[in-house]
């Protein structure tokens, strides 16, 4: 198969499936929706985990550490499979869409990573800042809100942006359950015309356009943030 042939087939696919049947848009829509939900809930839950881990109630910290270690120490695909079968059972909703189960699993997965990002962002703030605030008689809470967190956010946001990109790529795993994101689009078209390489390359380009433009966008934000500091 020559490059020219691949390009030709890609173009045919583009007209026929990606645009013609709107598979590109639905693929992007599902990928973006799944990533956005994952990052949103992952960040909220991750923040709660990070706060919980800093709490003075030690057992909570142990439970959270165990959760984070288990999530990080097992394959994401395995977690998705487990969620796919277990969550509908737990919620007693046998008809639950795979998308929901997958979104819950990916949010939990991302929360584990995000909590570590937030924790290390907070710990990276110079201890002297906290000491100076406490020595001036500020309470622990005021010190956290007015001194530590504003500085920690500058460490956290860039890493969170990277997490967003990682999540976008990981949504490809969801194609195992045909949730309709970009990687599912590959399976759909491949199922119709049995083409492999051209379609894989197309999908790769689509992913790359998304992640590359997002990383450029994040770069702009980062530079703006640095300027203000």
């Amino acid at each position: 198969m020559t490059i020219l042939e691949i390009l030709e087939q890609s173009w045919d696919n583009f007209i026929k499936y990606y645009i013609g049947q709107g598979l590109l848009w639905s693929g992007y829509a599902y990928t973006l929706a799944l990533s956005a939900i994952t990052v949103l809930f992952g960040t909220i839950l991750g923040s709660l985990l990070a706060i919980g881990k800093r709490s003075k109630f030690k057992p909570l910290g142990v439970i959270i550490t165990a959760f984070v270690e288990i999530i990080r120490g097992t394959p994401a695909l395995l977690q998705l499979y487990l969620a796919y079968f277990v969550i509908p059972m737990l919620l007693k909703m046998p008809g639950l869409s795979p998308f929901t189960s997958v979104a819950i699993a990916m949010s939990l997965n991302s929360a584990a990573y995000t909590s570590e990002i937030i924790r290390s962002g907070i710990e990276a703030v110079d201890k002297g800042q906290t000491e100076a605030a406490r020595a001036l008689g500020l309470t622990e809470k005021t010190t956290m809100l007015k001194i530590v967190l504003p500085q920690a956010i500058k460490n956290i946001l860039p890493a969170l942006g990277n997490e967003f990109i990682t999540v976008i790529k990981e949504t490809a795993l969801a194609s195992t359950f045909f949730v309709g994101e970009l990687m599912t689009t590959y399976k759909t078209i491949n199922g119709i015309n049995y083409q492999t390489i051209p379609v894989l390359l197309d999908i790769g380009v689509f992913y790359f356009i998304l992640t590359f433009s997002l990383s450029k966008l994040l770069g702009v934000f980062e530079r703006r943030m640095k300027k203000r500091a």
Partner: protein
Amino acid sequence: MLEVKNIYKNFGDLKVLRGVSTHVEKGEVISVIGASGSGKSTLLRCMNLLETPTYGEVWIEGKLMTPVDPYLHPEVIEASKTFASLKASGMGTEEAIVKIKAEDLLKEKHSAEGPLYKKLMKELYEANHIDVNEGRRKMSMVFQQFNLFNNKTVLENITLAPIETAKYHHEKDMKAIKEKVEDQAMTLLKRIGLEEKALVYPSTLSGGQKQRIAIVRSLAMNPDVMLFDEPTSALDPEMIGEVLDLMKELAESGMTMVIVTHEMGFCREVSDRVLFVDEGYIKEEGTPEQIFKAPKNPRLQDFLSKVL
């Protein structure tokens, strides 16, 4: 005004302070000298409980600031006294415990006596204790690394703590307080000739400027005593002078100060009293004259021969 009693501080197996007691009177300037690792910085940090002493008490203006050991609670002390006297009168241990418990129960049952007793205990506690944060506001600290808040402008660095303190005290007219605090901050900045830096962030300042602003930030709390933890040790040599000059000015204005320092010349000039800390003890204490001209302790003699 400030008193530490029998302070011990262990970091794991390392015994940094082994029973240090001293007091600071109003208007006094005290220097703490000693070799690195002698415990002098730890002593200073124990004074405002940035390090919680393993054992011992910190009193500020007649109020206890160190957290109270529950076993030192008056109620418990009373009970243990009763226990001892019951034992002395020949009663068995278990019997004595049962008797004390019965008496306590009696207090609870007596509807008049129970709550009254509790109220009395609460009043006693409140009369003798001071909240850690409240205590710290009376003795602000200046650090070796300045520790200006990076995310705040110079002006905000100075006004943050006074404004928050007013909030903690539930002051009503926050707007007026904010204005007053900002005025005071600008006056202080003018005093050190840095009023044009009010709106810049600390990252643009030199070390000497940072430290002078850190001193002014402490001053804005109107503290009763200021603690200095090696305030010139992180400065470039040409900037030490400006910081020492400001501290000298403060000392002359009657500010109560405790200074951990390696600047022997400065220490000799401004101090009323010098403490020599070594191996976790105050090994010698006296006027600069006594310490520098006629040191008695061999360790102090050795230390001075090295630094002078």
